[in-house]
């Protein structure tokens, strides 16, 4: 069978016009995955109200698919309940982008992990706050 050539149009669209780029001051949750030695590093910032993700921003160092998956995941979960957002997998992100080249599925598809890390961070902070109140 013929090999897939290059990236899908959706990947290129998100790479060229990434959505939700930036940082959030005093975020409710912050997640960071990857490392520059490996060639991919992603940061995700979230604002959460009543367990709904009301705002989300990212910054990514990495290849085309690293940037596109970051952008896509922010678009997918904006306005979503955190429990639903926790269920978004790497595969879901890749599917929404009409697929990634096979070798990129693992190394440059960390955006869902960064999102989950940000939500975990939010939950942890929330738990700490309710502890303080007690």
């Amino acid at each position, binding site marked *: 069978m013929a090999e897939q050539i290059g*990236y899908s149009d959706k990947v*290129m669209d998100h*790479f*060229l016009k*990434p959505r939700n*780029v930036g940082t959030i001051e005093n975020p409710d949750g912050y997640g*960071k995955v990857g490392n*520059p*030695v*490996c*060639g*991919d*590093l*992603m*940061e995700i910032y979230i604002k959460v109200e009543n367990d709904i993700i009301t705002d989300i921003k990212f*910054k*990514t*160092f*990495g*290849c*085309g698919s*690293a*940037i596109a998956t970051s952008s896509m995941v922010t678009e997918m979960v904006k306005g979503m309940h955190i429990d639903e957002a926790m269920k978004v997998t790497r595969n879901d992100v890749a599917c929404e982008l009409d697929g990634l080249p096979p*070798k*990129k599925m693992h*190394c*440059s598809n960390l955006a869902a992990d960064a999102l989950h890390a940000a939500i975990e961070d939010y939950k942890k902070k929330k738990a700490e706050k309710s502890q303080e109140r007690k």
Partner: protein
Amino acid sequence: MEKIYLDHASGKQVNNRVLEYAKPYLNEKIGNPSSLYSVGLEAKRAVEKAREKVAALINADEKDKVIFTSGATESNNLAIKGTVLRNQSKGNKIAASVIEHISVVNPMKELTKNGFVMNNIDVDENGLIDLNKISEIVNEKTVLTSVMYANNEIGTIEPIKEVSRIVHENGNYLHVDATAAAGFIPIDVQEDGIDLLTLSSNDIYGPQGVGALYVKAGVKLLPVLPGGGQEFGIRSGTENLFGIVGMGEAARIAKEEMEAESPRLQKIRDALIEGILQVDESYLTGHPEIRLPHHASFRFSRIEGESILLSMDTIYGIQIATGSACSSKTLEASRVLLSIGLKHEEAHGSMVITLGRANNMEQVPRIIEAVKGTIERLRMLSPL
């Protein structure tokens, strides 16, 4: 938007003059050079004429051989496996610089599975080979030492004449991969003291799928492709007539026009280097002076090379290369960039420009603007 192609090390447009010259050998002069009737003899004469032109490009002696192959990868394989396996009585050691092309590294690695010991020769931060290390490593048991004429990723030109002296004082044969250098800087196999030299046709604007291996008189090779005995019995298979005739003509043109073309390219190269190094945290990779006239290579901190390639191509219509891990088949960082002492995170942000005939000074401002725009955009996305 008019495309600006800046990746001539990966592939070149076949020169139209070469195409016109070699075309009849596709559909008119179609004899087999092994056939004894007139049409075959004419084909044979065309192959021999091409051989002379390739020999002239590198100033080979009449007694030496130029063997046509399917390209630089085959030439490197033939040079290494052919020479080492035929001369096993001399010893079981082989050596290569750490910045050799993968088609030199992999045949050598294969030989290590058959009991040969491979030694690596380091390079400095500019990519120049460590001459002292050669005399330390290479001895009479070293059948073959391979050092490239110039490196395709960082452009550095190696001191081959010195390398040859040391290799021949201590060991046996010297193989030089001249794929990146041939046609851009003068090569003289006699003056330089080279035993085996790899050439690629497309890299001198000839047709793809053909290359050559220069073999000095007296160096014996084991055929890697045994068969009907073509190419002095070393590389069997009916000759790629169109490819060989085309490569010959490309070699003739390269020899004739190098003196004017290389300084022209060097001026463009220098203007690009000057402009691109204006970008914050941008660095030249490879030697600042002892480098190929058409080669400019860089690294930029805090961004990644595949993103540079995609941005340059889709936003600005400019094609460049990168040594980034993410753009390689193996997802490993460039061996060459790590060998000159870069850290993994530094090697990720590399960009390689190799100029060619279609490039000109008028393109320089657009290229520099594109690089600046690309770097700025990607750094805005970067958390580093």
